[in-house]
């Protein structure tokens, strides 16, 4: 484990901890701004959207495999399957598609 890596991990952990700790420990009032409330409501989804597209297509060894896994994840999550089912099924779809493409 290099020093650089440890510094990254330390900074990452400290930032995340302070974000959690400071308001929980110090704050005693309520946020009333409708804009801020809405902004905080949408932030997690916006983060996930930007992190998933287009990066999901580069998450496996091949574009074909990733595309198959993405379609599988979209369909299963549309029908409200659990996180673990969706995650593992998209892996299986990606693996199967990759296998088929190397055979033909």
């Amino acid at each position: 484990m290099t020093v650089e890596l440890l510094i990254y991990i330390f900074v990452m952990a400290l930032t995340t901890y302070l974000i959690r700790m400071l308001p929980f420990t110090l704050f005693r009032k309520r946020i009333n701004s409708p804009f801020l409330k809405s902004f905080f409501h949408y932030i997690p989804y916006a983060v996930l959207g930007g992190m998933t597209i287009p990066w999901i297509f580069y998450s496996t060894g091949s574009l074909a495999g990733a595309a198959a896994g993405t379609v599988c994840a979209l369909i299963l999550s549309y029908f409200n399957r659990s996180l673990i089912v969706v995650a593992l099924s998209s892996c299986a779809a990606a693996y199967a598609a990759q296998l088929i493409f190397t055979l033909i």
Partner: protein
Amino acid sequence: MEIRASRLKFRHGLRDGLPIALGYLSVSFGFGISAVAKGLPPLPALLISMTNLTSAGQVAGLSVIAASGAIIEMIMTQLIINLRYSLMGLTLTQRLDDTFSTLHRMAISFFITDEIYAVASSKTGGVNTRYMYGLGLLPYMGWAAGTLAGAIAGSLLPASISSSLGIAIYGMFVAIIVPPAKKNRGILFAVAVAAAVSCCFKYIPVFSFITQGFAIIICAVLAAALAAVIFPVKEEQNDDR
């Protein structure tokens, strides 16, 4: 609202935390795989999970590490992605009974995640410290164990299988986004804008100087701000998972 001394016990917390722990076990397995795929050995991957306990923030942190990004980029990325924990902690302070000394608050704040927050804030009678420690314990262990297992599996499995497992954590993100986006136009809009902006950063050469960490920040802030203006959230609306 006055919170009276809560009668919840440590074991009530453990019981409520068990399903969260099982979910975390599988999600962090995907994180472990991704970490090894990006060049991290299993032990640093485990260290990240044991000190951060957050999925999206850790994945974004991985990309900053993999790209040897600046420290300020790491701080900004974590700040924007995890800012929601500030609001969750803030709203949770309204439900704490008087067992919460400053020290307990400082310790328990570490366990604020989307799922733990959701369960804790659903306790209408408020929560005490015993319950919160019980609630956090199993998810924390599940998160750590899953990461280590995923990282080891990632380094042992043949490349064709472990590369397919790289999509696991993204599959999970899809599973988090899609159900609420079906029901709520604001969420659908925020996700679509963020995805579109993210593609611009990736494919338009002018933006190639912007690193992935900053790209995530810009996408998320832009999309959430637009969504907040166009689709303001009404009072007491609760369509989170």
